[in-house]
């Protein structure tokens, strides 16, 4: 079990390192420096800037410095917001993204999984079709359309009613400001969870051991909860791993539409401003989260399926 886990970690670390390396060289080898887009800068100031950001050091030197700083948790100075370093910016934005992402995740699981089970247990009945149609809608409508439509409805059309919600902004996390973005974030995940849970639940209910459980005279509720649910959850967990990583690192779309100061928005700003260190910082953070979540998923597998535990021992 633990050696299995250790092996997964041993694969994850070089992966992260490879991503960092590729990002770093892609950024540094691109035509056009970070200060090109601005109003012409006098050469001596430019030289100053370059010196301050160590851009005149040999490339390998910059690379090693960057890696060394990363190990200390220092993502380097921001090229654009010169009084800040990237770590500070991330420290500001990440909690916001984290809160929204976490709320959306909890909502998605609480609604999506039960709804998927509900649809599966009534397979090919009207309730199944209704739920599946809802899931398809949630999957198909992209959230940058959904976001705007929500703003149009709750921010514009219902402006003078009690249902009015602010169209954007964060207001230090006021509840009213969170409703629309969190809903918008969670909707596609609810939909995917419905679809995946429904499919795997139908699959699980067809298994021979479900027939055995029913032949024992267990009430339907126990058959579902005790015998079917665990194996039905394996695909759900598989999906939730990367999904959690993406949700927690902040949706660029939703944060941009609703003007939320999370790291997704920082990333977009950074990209538009060619703020390479900021962009890299956010990219590395997300990649690390994706890798970490996949690790957690592997661990959860072994809780859900003893066969994995068994293989791990060998």
């Amino acid at each position, binding site marked *: 079990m633990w050696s299995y886990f250790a092996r997964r970690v041993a694969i994850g670390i070089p*992966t*992260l390192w*490879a*991503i960092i390396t*590729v*990002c770093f060289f*892609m*950024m540094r080898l*691109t035509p056009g420096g970070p200060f090109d887009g601005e109003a012409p800068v006098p050469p001596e100031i430019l030289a100053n800037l370059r010196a301050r950001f160590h851009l005149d050091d040999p490339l390998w030197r910059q690379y090693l410095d960057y890696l060394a700083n990363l190990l200390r948790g220092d993502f380097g100075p921001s090229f654009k917001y010169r009084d800040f370093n990237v770590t500070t910016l991330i420290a500001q934005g990440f909690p916001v993204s984290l809160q929204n992402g976490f709320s959306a995740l909890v909502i998605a699981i609480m609604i999506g999984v039960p709804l998927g089970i509900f649809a599966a247990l009534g397979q090919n009945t009207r309730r199944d079709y209704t739920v599946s149609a809802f899931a*398809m809608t949630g*999957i*198909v*409508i*992209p959230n*940058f*359309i959904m976001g*705007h*439509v929500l*703003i*149009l409805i709750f921010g*514009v059309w219902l402006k003078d009613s009690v249902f009015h919600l602010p169209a954007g902004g964060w207001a230090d996390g006021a509840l009213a400001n969170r409703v629309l973005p969190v809903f918008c974030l969670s909707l596609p995940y609810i939909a995917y969870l419905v679809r995946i849970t429904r*499919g795997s639940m*139908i699959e699980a209910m067809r298994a021979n051991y479900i027939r055995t459980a029913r032949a024992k005279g267990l009430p339907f509720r126990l058959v579902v909860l005790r015998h079917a649910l665990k194996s039905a959850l394996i695909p759900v967990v598989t999906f939730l791993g990367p999904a959690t990583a*993406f949700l927690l*690192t902040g949706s*660029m*779309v939703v944060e*941009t*539409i609703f003007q939320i100061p999370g790291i997704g928005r920082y*990333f*977009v700003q950074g*990209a*538009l401003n*060619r703020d390479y260190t900021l*962009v890299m910082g*956010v*990219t590395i953070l*997300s*990649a690390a989260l*994706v*890798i970490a979540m*996949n690790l957690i998923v592997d661990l959860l597998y072994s809780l859900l399926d003893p066969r994995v535990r068994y293989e791990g021992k060998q």
Partner: protein
Amino acid sequence: MNGIKFTSAPAAPGEIAGEFTGRSLWQDAWRRLLANRAAVAGMIILAGIALASVIGPFLLPWSYDSIDWEHIEALPPQFSTGHYLGTDSLGRDLLARTLFGGRISLMVGLLATTVALLIGVTVGAVAGFVGGRTDQLLMRFVDLMYSVPLTFFVIILMVVFGRNFALMFLAIGAVEWLTMARIVRGQTLTLRNKEFIEAARASGGSTANIIARHILPNVLGVVMIYVTLTIPQVILLESFLSFLGLGIQEPMTSWGMLINDGAAELEINPRTLIIPATFMTTTLFCLNFLGDGLRDALDPKDR
């Protein structure tokens, strides 16, 4: 003449048999697809939108970028001026813009998917068929790419190399091929040990030849299903890039850009958001129905 016919004859029976079973299999799938009402409706609407996007702009009284100087404000739909769906706040015809935007969005969708298809199928088929070290190397690379937040990657590419139409679908295609490669590899692995591949190998076919003539036709079904799933993703990614201002440049336009423009004048003229959004959502729905239909038609045992 006779001699030539005669020498080519030995190959013919096998080919005919291959043709025959191939066709009947596809015919079977086609019949099942036509029995699926949602998929057929999806196909028809999709064809309608595609056709309108391609030829529509030629038939409309207004072009997508011409400004109606007599109405430099948002106009409601009216027939007298030829603005069938009204104008945006600059007096540009909404229908013409939406159809033109659809042309760009669909084109990016098709081109980028083609790029993804070419890379994905090649990598997948080679990895699956050649196996061994090549397979491990390629698949480790795919695994690595999976850990990179791909949208980030495209954005970085767009920022680094500048806004460029050709580059955009190359960049999108370059990140969307991963799943395709995995699927094709899996299929190829199972095919590799089938008797007819053994036979082809035993009769001295080269690797490239076997892949092209025996593997690819057999993975076509799965690939087609996946293509219908990739196109919407690509359209979304393009829209998102345009939404961020990293995609198509003015005066050209795409659905994503129109939605972004519409969002800006949401309060005064919601039509500018609703109309392109409706077109785009409809297209996405149709592609989804078509994809589901194809999956059921080509792989009837699945659900």
